[in-house]
């Protein structure tokens, strides 16, 4: 873990119509850090990930990824102008995302889901992509499912394919947007195991939006509690979960941990 932030939100504003979702958010993640984002729904947690994955633009402030502005480009005179699609494409290569609804391509086999982008975008040969795809399936424990289609798999298996697919693009930063929220309770464990293993064995920077408090506590270096478009409180998991400073954090944790 170096001290230089790999992700930096500087007074970032995001609005949907009249609704302000991110309210001058300041937020930093260091390289290799595993950060969990918790908070009530509508607090802007997922929006942070979606802005990073360039699925949502921003209305104010600057987001920096790997030292370069994400939604802006430097004009010749040094000022920041809105990013072009070319710039966004370049920046996106650093990031990967795992979606709540998996978003696998239903008409492609599991293996093709994983190899499509490496072949098309990274320019890997089919053979190379296939070999790497099989390794990744091995990693997520689905080596024997390569030729199946997503609808033939359980939700937990589909999400593990989603993780393999994101990893296949070799991102430095992996974003998890409530990866277990759409799963039946008995399938949550297998997905968390894979994420936990990644967190332990790889120096990937990981950003995890989750409602799995116990898991967040186990796996994260830092936990951020989001409320009303800002970070209300952040800290090491053992501090934040056992002895939060803010009353709002305490209320939230009590409400979710009671369930």
């Amino acid at each position, binding site marked *: 873990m170096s001290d230089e932030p790999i992700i930096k939100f500087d007074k970032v504003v995001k609005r949907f119509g009249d609704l302000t979702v991110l309210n001058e958010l300041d937020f930093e993640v260091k390289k290799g850090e595993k950060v969990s984002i918790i908070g009530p729904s509508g607090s802007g947690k997922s929006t942070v990930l979606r802005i990073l*994955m360039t699925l949502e633009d921003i209305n104010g402030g600057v987001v920096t990824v790997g030292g370069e502005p994400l939604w802006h480009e430097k004009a010749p005179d040094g000022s920041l102008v809105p990013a072009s699609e070319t710039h966004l494409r370049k920046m996106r290569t650093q990031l990967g995302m795992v979606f709540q*609804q998996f*978003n696998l391509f239903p*008409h*492609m086999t599991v293996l093709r889901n994983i190899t499509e982008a490496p072949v*098309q975008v990274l320019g890997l040969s089919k053979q190379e992509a296939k070999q790497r795809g099989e390794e990744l399936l091995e990693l997520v424990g689905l080596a024997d499912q390569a030729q199946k*289609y*997503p609808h033939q798999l359980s939700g937990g298996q589909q999400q593990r394919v989603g993780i393999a*697919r*994101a990893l296949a693009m070799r991102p430095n930063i992996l974003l998890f947007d409530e990866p277990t929220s759409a799963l039946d309770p008995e399938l949550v464990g297998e997905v968390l195991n894979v994420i936990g293993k990644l967190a332990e064995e790889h120096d990937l920077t990981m950003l995890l939006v989750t409602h799995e408090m116990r898991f967040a506590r186990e796996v994260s270096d830092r936990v951020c509690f989001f409320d009303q478009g800002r970070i209300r409180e952040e800290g090491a998991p053992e501090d934040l979960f056992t002895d939060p400073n803010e009353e709002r954090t305490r209320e939230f944790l009590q409400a979710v941990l009671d369930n």
Partner: protein
Amino acid sequence: MLFGIAWDTSSGWAFAVSILPILLIGMWVTIQATVLGFFIALAVGLVWAALKAAPLKIISWPAAVVTEFLRDTPLLIQLFFLYYVLPEFGITLPAFMTGALALGLQYSAYTSEVYRAGIEAVAKGQHEAARALNLSGGRTFTHIILPQAIPRIVPAMGNYLVSIMKDVPLLSVVTVLEMLNVARIIGDRTFNYLVPLSMVGALYLIMTLVASAGVRLLDNWLPKQGIPLK
């Protein structure tokens, strides 16, 4: 006699049997016009759909205006226009080509709406996943969105195939010898309209039933989740 085939007017049945080969020649023209018109409608409609989906108004607007025009003016006017007006600008097409083109263009306005609906029905998450994986816009359209949209659009396209088939007799006004035109000529020359027109009706019924059955087979055969890619 037509197309070098003579008819036998000695009895009703003998007449029917003797003109069947003549009508079948006309039917072959009808099928060709239907197929060609349908493929033009499929191809041009896809172009309209892509243009109308363009983020730039300068591209999407003209496409919307043209398709609206094609949809809201009678096929017969478009047919006359292509047949009588284009030659004044030095573009002369054979009657059959003009007819197929007119059919294809008018129906391209309808098929473009079918494409649009099919494309919009693909989940938003599919676009997001493709974007997150940095797939290009073109690749996303051809390999992610379209294969999933096609099974949804097959039934509606099948309906238009049958509609085009039933509009082919309009081509007779620009001298195309499709099935109905052939039957009318036989009637004019023998003063027996009942037999040839009845036969045309029956042959049409067979064609449309076969076409509908084919579309249903295709619909059942295509997996609902999209055209599979290994």
